[in-house]
């Protein structure tokens, strides 16, 4: 193995020599990792001074982690530039062919390139964070807890690694630096949203969600690495001269994949949809198995995180001990997704079939897009979150001295029989699409993407949408009726 990794090291070494001799890389690296923390320290100190005058120490405590996140994020943006240029740049300068002509395997070249885009930016991020913490500490600005500092290091490095793995993949698939640069938004936009989400959790010092976010980012990074390795081929690098979008071909390909060999709707269901379900079987089994696991996780989170938090910070109405039946009823109104109006007769939210269906369909499409940008991984996380919420609510109902089993029986089961399978199917499809994308098949990535899209569309049309329609019809009529009857009976 050591022998196999040696060429990776030689490529990395060569690239580092190149980078360290290029002032256009050195300059921003130095500015972002050295001067930016200095200026950020000045800003932080002046804000802290201003806030201290008003005695808002709590705000200071919340602000510092956020500035650390910013200090870690900006040097990582240089990673995008280096990684985006790493392969396509060589291609454009015509230096790639001699490299491809060496007796190296594809993965050795790709890994060498990926690491060469990683070392300098990650070092810059680590240096910037450490330097900033040192400066902040010297100026007597209160530092966050060691656990939060460690988490901030993890988040910054994970963000950088994800951007690099995504950008290197883009670089390998682009034909010109221009096209790679134009595609950079596919990395930059999700990364920016991610930082916003991280900042949100950071403000509340919520370490558990941050831990899961880091895990998800690392999973996406590994998925991108795998994707890059699968589609990095000498043939692709030298065989394509320009990026062409042949829409007519794509539409034909989509329609062929969507329809399959079927000649009628019956055949389509009998052969094509059935075959999809057979292919999806492992993914479906995984998601079915994850159901009790995430439910249990939800219960665990409710016990270990939410309960202590509620007991210390929540108003009396949602305390878990010694509440009256009326208070518990009010608690239930807060917890349940079905909010009942003051008159008890008409729901506060008009739970029409159309509204429910639109909401569920939007969620399904959102999961599809989440899965698309994260190679199926974020879809899986969304599933865990959804089922985990059911576990949390289950525990919440128990705290309210209500029977979760009965409530789920009246409030979830009637439409859940249709909605939950459609949800599992939708998540499993998105997950399977990601797996399919990172599994070598010999087909071009554009073909796999279109076939994936056709698969998703087929299952949506054939099963998911009909199930969601039935679920919405049941929920808007039977479930509302049963739940309302149950709520009135326990009042």
């Amino acid at each position, binding site marked *: 193995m050591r022998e196999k990794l*040696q*060429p990776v090291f*030689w*490529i990395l070494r*060569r690239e580092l*020599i*190149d980078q360290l*001799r*290029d002032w256009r890389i050195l300059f921003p690296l130095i500015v972002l990792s050295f001067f930016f923390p200095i200026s950020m320290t000045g800003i932080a100190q002046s804000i802290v001074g201003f806030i201290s005058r008003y005695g808002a120490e709590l705000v200071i405590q919340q602000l510092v982690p956020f500035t650390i996140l910013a200090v870690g994020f900006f040097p990582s943006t240089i990673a995008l530039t280096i990684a985006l240029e790493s392969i396509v740049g060589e291609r454009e*300068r*015509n*230096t790639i*062919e*001699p*490299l*491809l*002509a*060496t*007796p*190296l*395997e594809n993965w050795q070249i790709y890994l060498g390139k990926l690491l060469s885009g990683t070392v300098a930016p990650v070092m810059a991020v680590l240096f910037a964070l450490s330097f900033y913490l040192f400066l902040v500490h010297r100026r007597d600005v209160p530092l966050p807890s060691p656990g939060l500092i460690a988490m901030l290091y993890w988040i910054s490095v994970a963000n950088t690694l994800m951007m690099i793995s995504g950008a290197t993949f883009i670089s390998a698939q682009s034909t010109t630096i221009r096209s790679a640069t134009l595609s950079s938004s596919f990395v930059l936009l999700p990364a920016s949203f991610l930082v916003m989400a991280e900042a949100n959790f950071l403000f509340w010092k919520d370490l558990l969600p941050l831990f899961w976010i880091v895990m998800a980012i690392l999973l996406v990074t590994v998925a991108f690495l795998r994707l890059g390795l699968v589609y990095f081929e*000498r*043939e692709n690098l*030298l*065989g394509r001269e320009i990026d062409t979008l042949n829409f007519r071909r794509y539409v034909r390909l989509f329609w062929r994949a969507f329809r399959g060999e079927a000649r009628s709707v019956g055949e389509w269901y009998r052969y094509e949809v059935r075959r999809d379900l057979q292919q999806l079987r492992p993914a479906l089994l995984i998601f079915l198995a994850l159901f009790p696991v995430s439910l249990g996780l939800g219960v665990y989170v409710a016990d270990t995180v939410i309960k202590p938090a509620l007991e210390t910070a929540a108003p009396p109405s949602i305390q878990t001990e010694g509440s009256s039946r009326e208070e518990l009823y009010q608690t239930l109104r807060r917890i349940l997704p079905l909010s009942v109006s003051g008159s008890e007769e008409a729901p506060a939210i008009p739970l029409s079939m159309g509204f429910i269906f639109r909401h569920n369909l939007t969620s399904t499409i959102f999961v599809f897009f989440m899965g698309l940008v994260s190679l199926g991984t974020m879809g899986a996380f969304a599933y865990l979150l959804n089922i985990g919420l059911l576990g949390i609510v289950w525990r919440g109902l128990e705290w309210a001295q209500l029977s979760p089993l009965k409530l789920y029986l009246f409030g979830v089961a009637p439409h859940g029989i249709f909605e939950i399978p459609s949800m599992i199917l939708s998540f499993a499809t998105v997950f399977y699409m990601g797996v399919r994308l990172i599994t070598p098949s010999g087909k071009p990535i554009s073909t796999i993407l279109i076939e994936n899209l056709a698969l998703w569309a087929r299952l949506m049309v054939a099963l998911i949408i009909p199930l969601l329609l039935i679920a919405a019809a049941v929920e808007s009529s039977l479930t509302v009726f049963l739940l309302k009857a149950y709520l009135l009976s326990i009042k």
Partner: protein
Amino acid sequence: MIEAEALSKQFDSFWAVREVTFTVKMGEILALLGQNGAGKTTTIRMLNALLRPTRGRARIMGYDTVEQPEAVHRSVGMLTEQHSLYLRMNGYEYLEFYARLYGLHDPGERRRRITSLLEYFGLGQAASRRCGEYSKGMRQKLSLARALIHEPPVLLLDEPTSAMDPEAAQLVRQEILRLRSKNRAILISTHNLTEAEMLADRIAIIAEGRILATGTPQELKREVFGEAEYLLRFQSPWEGAITLPESVEVVERKPMEWRLRVPQPQTMLPLIWRGLLEQGAALLTLQEVPRSLEETYLAVMARARERGEIQ
């Protein structure tokens, strides 16, 4: 040894190379002669296992280019059409990088090879200068040195002297001939007719991905224009007669010169010369009528167009 059997390559709906077949033995140079876009580079890339053939197969030193690409890469020294280098590295570092990738792990051996190649190509003094400061010719020479760093038995040279000054081109040509003498199989692609004629033992004329004609320069000329023609000049007008062998054809007969088509010149020409002297003819010169490779190339292209093989 280089073997290509019905090698074909399709990009989308476009066939870049079609049914290309040839063999290059050790110690032989084959020139792929054709205009830009004829399929020369694609053929070379397939031979070096950089592109997968759509149909057909190729072997380098017996290694299949699809099944054993790494063995193929070890056996081939490749000079690409664009002689681009890593401009921030110096000449020595550049060769060292490739020496390492080709598995030259022994530092002493690596240093020896790099130094000798740099010296041979006259780059010894420039070894510590960055490649970005090199002239075009120097870059070309360093690229060739890179192709030779692992002492490969097969060389694939794509436009080896394109855009070089005459002096540098001469040096590269000499080096190619020296490598042939060291029993290497060499394939060069070029659109330079003079270079092809100077270097190649055999020439394959390629257009629109097809090989239109293959052979030694002489064979190609014979194939296009028929048997070689010879011009016999007299010192003074001569009207005598001579019995010529049946296979020799007199194309034109004037008092001061004859134009003959001779099928086996090595044996026939001395007989004709002696016969004429015996008949008392005052002979001045006997020489082959020059037929350039350019004429041959153009004639091959015209013939292929006529036959509808190319557009």
